[in-house]
């Protein structure tokens, strides 16, 4: 039977029986549970070994130092069975990519032969964005294709219109860079010569890009070699049947967990993302505008514990690299689902436990029906923020059912600093650090989030060693500190993020790009779970043409932290030709930063849980002691009155705190208005678009157009005329 026919059969059996591959019983698991579990652990270890080998063979620091890659084992028909750690957003995409090879009849031409190497980075055909290179190789045993090894790594430059790999600025797919569209790029375990030549002429740092290709291949070959031993040991029949059972096992686990830990019903969570680019350096005229993106999430759970995800209301595609395909959203969901629902056996089986309603055609989440050439240079950007809502949404269900230990508030944002220019060795380089892979974690229902220890896209939260980063790039770390008040404010606060201070050093000059991989800079997240306040916006700073050298010579204070948001240390301590303490991200200024110029890059914390004035005053005191919060916030937001003594220790005034909290409650009752009264006044403002920026009205207009029933509901809520629509507005400024 051809793989195409097997695929069709599997799909039919799932539809008919509700079980992956029609497996109503897990025969191998039941008959031989010891070997079933042993093989599973071996598969995980094989993937882990591939990750270790692959990362070390790779060249770019994000793989070598940060492990920003993944390896996985798949069934012949593509379904992921086991994966390594690393960027776990990808096994779904790799599964769908192999499926696309099969559906496109590659089995007939060019065929799947031992030693073949296939690659893709094209979002039109199962990729996510051009810098994420996907490699898959078929694995044969005694002439039969019995599995695939797959890998993805995030290369540092994909030849997009601007240097780097956080390519938010790409206006269209033509600017997304070098494409590998479902290609066979090698055979007999070697890349074709023209593969390297294309990378050489179409990326800016080919030696790193090719080095990463070797890393992916090395990991895949490691999987293949080890699996040969595994199949010999367990027997081909056991191997093949157990591989399928792991996937059905995972599906069952996910369904059971939903049924035993959640509640049927409907969850709604609005979310938005700003992309304020008016007046900034852009590539094409239509990019000189401000955009707000609607990332609405609706989840329904039916009587059979089946989950349906919807993005109804998603706004239109944008002329930037922040559009994503439905396939990639499936993969992103697999990642989020693994965090919040099923993490015993992380594989494709979980996907069969839920449905994703096709996102609105022409939206950022399904752009191609409206614009086949929409860019996706940093497709993850809106998706990870949409995914952040999944944490809070499911957290609410776990809370309602009493599983407080599983609750998480919303996630953090992702902002990335990139550099391009000549490094300390006289070589042109492009790079990014992995600071963003170390956010604070979401608050729980029983405690604060962890500081600097979480990332939405990888469980391998690791910002890498500063010294190694300095080894690769012409920068020195002046500071890397937990950022006070960078998590949301609540009874339990979000884990704190951190801020880095970089000084440019040993280079004729570098370009600094503050890239969007899921940041918010004008707005804040809609994550006020149970009365908490969301995290502040992402605001980087930089200083060009500084007096830092003179300050160093005079042994005067420099900058080691961001400082008070009302009085940033950069502005207080540094003089510069161009001093920017409050920049709306993302941006690529094009200005060259030179010796002793400074960059301050914050990494956000995650979201909080509960009314802040219910936070234990002792926890606020501890935060004050550690400089994790400030006195003003302790007083105004947490209602805690505390005093610092001569030894810099804090004491809470219990009586004054109780009084302050009582006053805050009274103030809320006094200044709060009945909802209906507010609604009456507000609906008039909405109808008149009063106080609504062009980004806001343009977003609502496209959301209402692309999902008419969403538009009708919005009109009905505000009692607007049936034909009401927001008019297109030009951006202000």
């Amino acid at each position, binding site marked *: 039977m051809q793989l195409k026919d097997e695929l069709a059969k599997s799909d039919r059996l799932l539809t008919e029986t509700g079980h992956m591959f029609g497996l109503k019983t897990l025969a191998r698991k039941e008959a031989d549970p010891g070997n079933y579990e042993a093989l599973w652990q071996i598969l995980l270890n094989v993937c882990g070994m591939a990750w270790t080998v692959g990362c070390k063979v790779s060249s770019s620091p994000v793989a070598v130092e940060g492990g920003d890659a993944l390896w996985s084992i798949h069934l012949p028909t593509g379904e992921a069975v086991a994966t390594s750690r690393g960027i776990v957003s990808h096994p779904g995409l790799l599964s769908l990519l192999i499926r696309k090879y099969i559906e496109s009849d590659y089995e007939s031409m060019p065929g799947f032969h031992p030693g073949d190497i296939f690659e893709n980075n094209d979002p039109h055909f199962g990729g996510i964005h051009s810098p994420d290179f996907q490699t898959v190789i078929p694995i044969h045993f005694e002439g039969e294709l019995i599995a695939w090894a797959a890998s993805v790594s995030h290369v540092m430059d994909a030849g997009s219109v601007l240097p780097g790999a956080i390519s938010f600025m790409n206006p269209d797919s033509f600017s997304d860079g070098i494409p590998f569209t479902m290609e066979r790029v090698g055979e007999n375990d070697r890349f074709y010569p023209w593969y390297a030549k294309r990378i050489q002429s179409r990326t800016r740092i080919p030696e790193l890009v090719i080095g990463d290709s070797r890393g992916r291949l090395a990991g895949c070959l490691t999987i293949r070699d080890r699996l040969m031993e595994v199949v010999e040991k367990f027997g081909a029949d056991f191997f093949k049947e157990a591989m399928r059972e792991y996937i059905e096992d995972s599906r069952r686990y996910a369904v059971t967990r939903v049924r*035993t830990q959640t*509640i*049927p*019903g*409907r*969850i*709604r*969570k*609005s979310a*938005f993302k700003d992309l304020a680019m008016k007046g900034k350096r852009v590539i094409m005229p239509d990019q000189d505008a401000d955009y707000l993106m609607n990332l609405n999430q609706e989840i329904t*759970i*039916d*009587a059979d*514990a089946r989950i349906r995800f919807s993005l109804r209301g998603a706004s239109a595609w944008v002329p930037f690299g922040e559009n994503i395909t439905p396939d990639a959203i499936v993969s992103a969901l697999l990642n989020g689902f693994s965090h919040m629902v099923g993490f015993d056996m992380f594989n494709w089986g979980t996907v069969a436990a839920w449905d994703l309603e096709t996102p609105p055609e022409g939206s950022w989440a399904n752009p191609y029906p409206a614009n086949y050439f929409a860019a996706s240079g940093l497709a993850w950007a809106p998706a990870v923020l949409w995914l952040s809502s999944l944490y809070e949404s499911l957290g*609410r269900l776990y*809370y*309602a*059912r*009493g599983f407080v*230990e599983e609750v998480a508030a919303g996630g953090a944002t992702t902002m990335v600093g990139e550099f391009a220019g000549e490094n300390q060795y006289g070589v042109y380089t492009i790079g990014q650090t992995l600071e963003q892979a170390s956010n604070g974690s979401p608050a729980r229902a*029983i405690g604060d989030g962890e500081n600097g220890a979480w990332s939405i896209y990888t469980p391998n939260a690791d910002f890498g060693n500063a010294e190694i980063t300095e080894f690769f790039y012409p920068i020195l770390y002046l500071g890397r500190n937990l950022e006070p*008040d960078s998590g949301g404010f609540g009874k339990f606060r979000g884990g704190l993020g951190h801020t880095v201070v970089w000084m440019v050093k040993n280079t004729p000059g570098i370009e600094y790009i503050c890239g969007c991989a899921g940041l918010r800079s*004008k*707005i*804040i*997240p*809609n994550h*006020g779970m149970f*009365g908490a*306040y*969301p995290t*502040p*916006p992402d605001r980087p*700073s930089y200083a060009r043409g500084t007096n830092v050298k003179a300050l160093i010579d005079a042994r005067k204070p420099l900058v080691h932290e961001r400082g008070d*948001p009302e*009085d940033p240390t950069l502005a207080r301590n540094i003089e510069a030709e161009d001093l920017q303490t*409050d920049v709306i991200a993302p941006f690529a200024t094009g200005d060259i930063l030179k010796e002793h110029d400074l960059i301050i890059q914050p990494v956000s914390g995650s979201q909080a849980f509960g*009314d802040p*004035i*219910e936070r234990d005053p002792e926890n606020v005191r501890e935060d004050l002691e550690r400089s994790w919060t400030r006195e*003003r916030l302790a007083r*105004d937001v947490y209602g805690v009155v505390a005093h610092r003594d001569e030894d810099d220790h804090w004491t809470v005034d219990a009586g004054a705190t109780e009084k302050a909290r009582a006053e805050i*409650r009274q103030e809320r*009752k006094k200044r*709060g*208005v*009945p*909802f209906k009264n507010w609604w*009456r006044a507000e609906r008039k403002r909405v109808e008149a678009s*009063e*106080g*609504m*920026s062009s*980004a*806001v009205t343009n977003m*609502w207009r496209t959301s209402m157009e692309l999902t008419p029933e969403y538009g009708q509901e919005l009109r*009905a809520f*505000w*009692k607007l005329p049936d034909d009401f629509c*927001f008019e297109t507005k030009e951006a202000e400024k």
Partner: protein
Amino acid sequence: MSEYNPHEIRRLVDGELPWLRVQEIMRSPKDANRLLVWIEIQQERVDWNERILLPLTPALFIVESGARRVVKCRCGFEFGDDYRVNWKLEALIYVHEDRESLDRIYRGIDQPDPDWIQLREYSCPGCGTQLEVEAVPRGCPPDFEFLPDLDTFYRDWLGTPLPDTRTFEDKTLSEIARWEV
């Protein structure tokens, strides 16, 4: 399935268990009677007698109040007559929509742009508890975060049907339709 002493669940809920023990509980299969214990804990901590059908938030519960199922605050305040209408329609709302009012929470470079976002605080008219906060652009209807299908839950998932049934539908817009502009 695991089984826990209700006292240990109380300590878990109150954040008093050592983190390592919490991790053990997270790793283990879940206890089948958690909801009952959870509701029992919540029920004994409020001063009113209506049966809690489902805790929604630390302050809000769906309760059986005579023939009604309503959202009720731990202080006793009831939000309307039907849990299928977004309870926010009966809450107090305060909106931070300019820089001066945002200063209370976010200052300097930590402040969002009020032309792009409203910070809405929903509070209980009875006790002043801040129940939810929304950060959304003007025009966004309030999130109806969770509308449970209570009858399916109790009948099909728990096997203990409620005495009478309600259709599973969002009645918020029906309520709005009755409002005078």
